[in-house]
């Protein structure tokens, strides 16, 4: 690591890993539902699980991409990030959007 601000990337990667695990959970729910064990049907129907599975995928990948960019750009541009605060604001905004979407899917809005 050559620039202090590259550390921001860690938190994007951590969010990414967390959401990835959640995505796997929803994947299993659907796998079992397809195999004939749809015990959670009342709480998490298949269409909800599918939307959440896809949404989590997209958000963890985006979080990973953003983390990658915050790591790569300073090194390529040979300059500290202009605003680390903005990066954290983006991280929080992304996390909130992701969570809001998932809650929305569960409430069937």
């Amino acid at each position: 690591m050559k620039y202090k601000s590259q550390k921001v990337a860690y938190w994007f990667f951590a969010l990414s890993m967390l959401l990835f695990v959640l995505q796997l959970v929803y994947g299993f729910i659907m796998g079992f539902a397809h195999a004939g064990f749809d015990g959670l049907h009342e709480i998490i129907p298949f269409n909800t699980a599918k939307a959440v599975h896809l949404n989590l995928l997209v958000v963890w990948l985006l979080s990973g991409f953003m983390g990658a960019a915050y790591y790569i750009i300073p090194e390529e541009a040979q300059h500290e990030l202009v605003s680390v605060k903005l990066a954290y604001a983006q991280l929080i905004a992304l996390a909130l959007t992701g969570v809001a979407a998932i809650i929305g899917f569960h409430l069937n809005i």
Partner: protein
Amino acid sequence: MTLYKGKRRTTTALVLSMGLFFAALLYLPGMLPFDSQVTDSFFRWWVVHLWVEGVWELIMGGILSFLLIKLTGVDREVIEKWLYVIVGLTFLSGVLGTGHHYYYIGVNKIWLIVGGIFSALEPLAFLAMALFAVNMYRKGEKKHPNKLALYWTLGAAIVSFVGAGLLGFAHTLPQTNLYTHGTLVTAMHGHLAFWGAYAMIVLAIISYAMPNMTGRKLYDTGRGRMAFWFSNVGMVGMTVAFGVAGVAQVYMERIMKIEFMKVQEMMEIHFYILIICATLFTTGILMYIADFIKHGQPTDEALIKE
């Protein structure tokens, strides 16, 4: 912003930033409200398709170039020349390739031809990435100690070609898609494509960045290697399970005209296999995350003084 003030603007950085910028921009068409399901779908694919088969490929190409420059030590000029080729191929095929989502959904029939031709060209971009990565690896003289990052990088380039390129091609022609549209054949392609192209490239950059940020050099751990193989073998197994189930579904549902729910019941056995493979995959991912946690948090002590 950092790019503007930076000392240099490299192709790698520009392609990556353009990818991210257009990804944000292309999120917008999905929010346009329409009364018609058809028009809604039409614009929905501007988000989904132009993301994964357009601008995300730029992001992937950018990350791939960065990693290959760092890991193989091949000259930036050589690597970035390839990057231009990849970007060119992506846009040439990817933009009009959107047509392959417009088969049989109620839009103009012209898309059958446009989508068929251009989406058949789409594997070229991924083929270029795979050839590019493997060639650079062969050419590379520098042996970077971070073996795990190299595994994931080459893995991403190769599996994305198989998953996105070949398996995508398997059902992209209108003649085939007439039968496979909306079946598990799509799930088969989707799983290996996303895993190879995007999940693995993210895991690659994390594997590369973590030791540098935290100063703990877990470059080549047994667990890290097992994570790579478990998750890949698991995912290939899942893809095969989906593929077999998908072909069976197409045959029973669309050719023998057995009723939808009946077919779903008959396919249950395939999902036992799927769950077994998914368990293997998950084990791999949990090992990867164990390594991630072991690295700890980044510190300033890991800074390299120049």
